[in-house]
């Protein structure tokens, strides 16, 4: 068969599957947006399966990376040593101050019967992979559901918060970094307790979206997690405010590209329960309990009206189904 004839014949046959595959790809994008769970499970299984390989590959490459990085440090080791000595002396002073202040805070808390902060458990994990893609900045940890890691938990290194777990397999977890475009966490800017949202945009310094646009924020202010929403514990160190044109950004304390070992914080705010009646303020003060409100008179229905059976009998929704329906509605 001549070449020209073959090309024409083949093109005629190839158009149909190409169109079908294009349509399938569009359907996959839409289905993935609606139901990303299947993809996430596939990712988690794949990462679990690859985890031993990643650990083996990562160790020597880390060594090479450190060695390459250390070449440049040879020339700055003397000045770096002086700087560290000075910083160490300053930190010792701050440590003494903080010990005194910590004792004072404990004393005040005891005097005020303050509600103690929830205890935090942490899982120590090693970073076995990093990925910097246009639409995702992530790292992979060697701790997963078997170790107690769950989606939503905060991930920190020794300097500050790095990101949050967003996907867990059995033995691995994916972390969405604070710099990732999908990252949004509520933060507090101290001093002044200014509330803001820290929004990643794939740049090294995430954007700071202030809740009140005229709030007083200065360069150098400290940014910590606010704990709003109960997903993250309050007070996790994140970074310092830096100026960016008309707005503000945050220079992160942690460097996700250098972190080797991280902590996955297991934080769950305990559900609030009603105190017993004896501890309610009125009864504790010796006053009688508040009388229940009187029933509302059914004034809207005239006395001559007879109750009418509903024409359509509404099905009784079990509580779990109702909750699911509410969740679906909320989504």
């Amino acid at each position, binding site marked *: 068969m001549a070449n020209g004839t073959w090309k024409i014949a083949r093109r005629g046959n190839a158009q149909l599957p190409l169109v079908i595959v294009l349509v399938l790809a569009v359907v996959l994008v839409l289905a993935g947006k609606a139901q990303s769970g299947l993809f996430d499970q596939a990712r988690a299984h794949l990462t679990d399966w690859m985890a031993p390989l990643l650990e083996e590959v990562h160790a020597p490459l880390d060594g090479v990376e450190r060695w390459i990085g250390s070449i440049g440090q040879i020339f700055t080791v003397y000045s770096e040593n002086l700087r560290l000595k000075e910083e160490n002396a300053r930190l010792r002073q701050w440590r003494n101050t903080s010990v005194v202040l910590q004792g004072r805070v404990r004393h005040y808390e005891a005097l005020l019967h303050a509600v103690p902060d929830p205890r935090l458990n942490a899982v120590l994990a090693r970073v076995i992979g990093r*990925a910097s893609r246009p639409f995702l900045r992530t790292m992979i940890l060697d701790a997963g559901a078997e170790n107690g890691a769950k989606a939503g938990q905060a991930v920190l290194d020794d300097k500050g918060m790095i990101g949050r777990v967003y996907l867990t397999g059995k033995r691995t977890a994916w972390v969405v970094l604070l710099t990732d475009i999908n990252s949004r966490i509520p933060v507090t800017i101290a001093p002044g307790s200014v509330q803001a949202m820290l929004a990643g945009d794939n740049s090294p310094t995430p954007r700071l979206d202030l809740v009140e646009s005229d709030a007083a924020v200065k360069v150098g202010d400290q940014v910590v997690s606010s704990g709003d929403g109960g997903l993250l514990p309050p007070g996790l160190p994140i970074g310092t405010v830096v100026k960016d044109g008309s707005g503000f950004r945050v220079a992160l304390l942690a460097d996700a590209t250098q972190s080797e070992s991280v902590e996955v914080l297991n934080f769950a705010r305990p559900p609030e329960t009603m105190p017993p009646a004896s501890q309610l303020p009125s009864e504790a003060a010796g006053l009688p309990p508040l009388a229940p409100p009187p029933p509302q008179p059914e004034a809207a229905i005239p006395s001559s009206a007879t109750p009418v059976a509903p024409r359509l009998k509404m099905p009784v929704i079990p509580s779990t189904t109702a909750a699911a329906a509410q969740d679906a509605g909320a989504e």
Partner: protein
Amino acid sequence: MGTTERLYAPAIQRFAAALVPLFCGLLGVVIANIPVSFVGGLVPPPLLGLVPVYFWCLVRPDLMTPAAAFAIGMLEDVMSGSPPGIWTLGFVVAYAVVARQRDSFAGLAGIAAVLGFAAAALAACATATLAVALLYAHLPPLGAVVAELAMTVAAYIPGALAVSAVHHRLVGPLRSDF
């Protein structure tokens, strides 16, 4: 191997040879997505899976079908952690661009061939970016996408040399029957 021998190559060998382009694409995706970086994540990894798609779409389109491009793109989605379907759509659109302009792309050589691949990679990256922008109602940072595109184009020459060697050693002798 003579023409007659090629025509009568065992069916199983022909079938295996037909899977080589798909396998190369999948291998490229796996290699590119090993989450290890020598440069501290400063630049994104290239879309290595796109090189076999482009190469065999030009050289032997009967071996690199739209379904194969779909599968390679889907593995890229799963392994890269990108929003589901983004790179699948990108790879299939790049395939469609190359397949429709196959005669133009196939005649390119040297730097022009690299530019041809750059056009295909641009189609994939632009489609993925547009899809993300539509899905999430905000434009992703273009700098990262441009970096991905640049890395992919930079990886084309070694990638094309590798798939060309695979083609000549494995695929060509078994299936060059027309």
